[in-house]
């Protein structure tokens, strides 16, 4: 049924339709509305049978999820930003144990400096944790990806993160089609665990593995992710048949077949990118886009097939690998073979900075003329950075964040530091 609904609530409805049996979470913006809506549904028994556990931290949230999943329950949690970092040890545990937990990441920057707004630094920090990672472009896709995520996770016995941009998606009201319970029941069979703490067949989970088999266990985890490269498109195709909508999958092209310049991105920024492409196409520019829907496993073959013919690739990414530049761009490069298109890395939208069509238009024009630097920080206020570098000539120049805020007038000049 199509309804006007907030992204978080829509996702909560989708998760409830998947009939999770245990949910554990700790609130953090911008994830809060999702888990609040779910706790309400558990309270009113709209979602039943389900146990909602209001834990004391994210480390607790993932640990409870691990226990619940190992005991055979379909398990869900959600977090963002600092919360994901705080849970990191357990995140690796969940994937190492092969537990099909589904977790929403309401993407938000990580500190310091503290920032509550959107970028992808949180989920990108866990890209090699062994979890599958899906990135939603719209709220409809977030709903659809969550339904698919449970199926993918359980088929592979691997945990899945569904990443959706904080605020941009989680807090946006849009028309979203929420499927009916019968449709979802038909799409998602009951959870049949691959391993379970069953009193009738006692076993232990969490063995210590030494050099004799550690590499093999790890290799198997990689192999399972490689299998996901088949499973994810299969599930997306099945979803398409069942619900009539295209959602998820590995990669999705937009006006890219005949393009010289291809923009690669993930998440909600694809919407703005597509609008800009439409505009630039009017002026005769041969430009298109490729959206990465699945970042882990990384769809090397899919990317290769879609980008191979381009002259240049512009990767617009909402995170930065400090000390090298792009994260997505590095991955994209490894998919390309000689003669490879030129790859430009563009770091954009950090900590909630808006990525506007005006900026993208100028950026793509520069790219098409090969006037871009290999690594660009979109809309960077270089003068502000220069002034801080000047201040740093004094040994005790103080904390950068405070200095720069004072410089732009966001906090008052301190009587001490002047």
């Amino acid at each position, binding site marked *: 049924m199509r309804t006007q609904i907030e992204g978080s609530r829509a996702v909560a409805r989708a998760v409830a339709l998947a009939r999770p049996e245990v949910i554990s979470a*700790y*609130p*953090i*913006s911008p994830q*809060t509305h999702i888990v*609040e809506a779910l706790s*309400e549904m558990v*309270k009113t028994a709209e979602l039943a049978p389900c146990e909602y556990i*209001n834990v*004391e*931290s994210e480390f607790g949230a993932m640990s409870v999820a691990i226990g619940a999943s190992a005991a055979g329950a379909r398990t869900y949690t959600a977090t963002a930003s*600092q919360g994901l970092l*705080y849970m990191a040890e357990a995140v690796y545990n969940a994937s190492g144990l092969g537990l099909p937990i589904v977790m929403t990441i309401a993407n938000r920057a990580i*500190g310091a400096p*503290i920032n509550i707004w959107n970028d992808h630094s949180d989920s990108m920090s866990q890209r090699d944790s062994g979890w599958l990672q899906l990135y939603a472009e719209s709220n409809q896709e977030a709903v659809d990806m969550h339904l698919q995520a449970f199926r993918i996770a359980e088929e592979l016995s691997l945990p899945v993160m569904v990443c959706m941009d904080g605020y941009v998606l989680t807090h946006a009201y849009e028309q979203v089609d929420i499927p009916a319970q019968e449709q979802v029941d038909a799409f998602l069979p009951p959870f049949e665990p691959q391993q379970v703490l069953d009193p009738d067949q006692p076993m232990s989970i969490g063995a210590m593995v030494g050099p004799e088999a550690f590499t093999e266990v790890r290799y198997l985890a990689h192999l399972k992710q490689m299998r996901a490269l088949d499973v994810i498109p299969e599930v997306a195709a099945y979803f398409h048949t069942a619900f009539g909508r295209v959602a998820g999958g590995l990669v999705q092209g937009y006006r890219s077949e005949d393009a010289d310049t291809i923009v690669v991105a993930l998440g909600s920024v694809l919407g703005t990118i597509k609008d800009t492409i439409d505009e630039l196409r009017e002026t005769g520019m041969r430009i298109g886009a490729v959206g990465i829907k699945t970042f882990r496993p990384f769809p090397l073959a899919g990317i290769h097939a879609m980008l191979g013919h381009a002259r240049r690739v512009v990767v617009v990414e909402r995170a930065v690998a400090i000390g090298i530049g792009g994260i997505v761009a590095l991955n994209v490069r490894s998919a390309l073979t000689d003669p490879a298109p030129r790859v430009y890395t563009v770091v954009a939208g950090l900590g909630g900075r808006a990525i506007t069509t005006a900026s993208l238009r100028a950026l793509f024009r520069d790219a098409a003329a090969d006037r871009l630097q290999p690594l660009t920080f979109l809309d960077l206020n270089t003068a502000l950075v220069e002034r801080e570098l000047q201040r740093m000539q004094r040994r005790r120049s103080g904390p950068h964040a405070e200095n720069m*805020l004072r410089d732009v007038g*966001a*906090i*008052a000049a*301190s*009587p*001490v530091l002047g």
Partner: protein
Amino acid sequence: MPSITKPIVPLLDLPRNAVGLTVRDYEGTMSTLCAGCGHDSITASLVQALWELDLQPHMIAKLSGIGCSSKTTAYFAGTAHGFNSVHGRMAAIATGAAAANRDLLYVGVSGDGDSLSIGLGQLMHAMRRNVRLMYIIENNGVYGLTKGQFSASADVGALLKGGQKNLYAPIDPVQVGLAIGATFLARSFSGDKQQLVPVLKAAAMHRGFALVDVLSPCVTFNDHEGSTKSYRYMREHEVQATEADFIPHRTAVTASIPVDGVQTVAMHDGSELHFRNVPADYDPTDRVSVMHYLQERRDAGEVVTGILYVDEDAPNLHELGNTTETPLVKVPYEALCPGSRALAAVQRQWT
């Protein structure tokens, strides 16, 4: 988050303390909390207490975690040092800072979520290390900043605004502190400045970890009928267990004249705590009697306030670690690393 500077209103005749500062010099930027939030009253009491203690702001370091409560370090002692850390980790960061520089007064401000949910482990270990840190929990029973979910201090049966009932036993930081050997434990109410100011002053002068649990209603999410952390509930259920006067060092001579029924605790800097009107069988220096009393009053549905327990004799972090009187940040490199000859001399003892 942009901060709002307070307008400068010339108030010429404000009294000055022993270091020549007016109470306004202990204020910070304008609060951005909801009007009526208990946390703002605690800030006001802190401003008063720090002013009355004649402390130099540059000798104070304010630390906090994350939450509405943790934002308040910006609203007092604007010229002191500040460290806004991450959620639940303030006690550990303060431990590190105190280890490196024992000269500063560490003032930690946290919330019930920050301290009792995610940060409980850090808090407990700072208590048992007896770090010299005044640790204020601005306790409202909810996570105010993330919009009012129950925290670990919510009482059984307490209701949220939407009617949801808390089923889980609350964690009482004072009882936790008693159990693990904390050396200064107090509870107060944001709405009772008369009690809170002396409590804060005594906590600041304590030689080790001083926990001040301050009930501080969240007017936006937890001040309704059915809440046990509301203004109304506190007015109806607060019971002062002890009335304590904090007598600073320099006035100790006149104030220490023995008075009937007054129990005096000497603080390490020469200040004194005078306990008046303490219930029979209650001794604020006897852990077991305090535990017993608190449990009994809690079972009777009362919220007991006052300076509840003091141990001025227990060794603190520095004494336990046998560190130098000189703060480590000021110890010259040559003293910290006396060189290979000195090392060889030490090693010769075992050859």
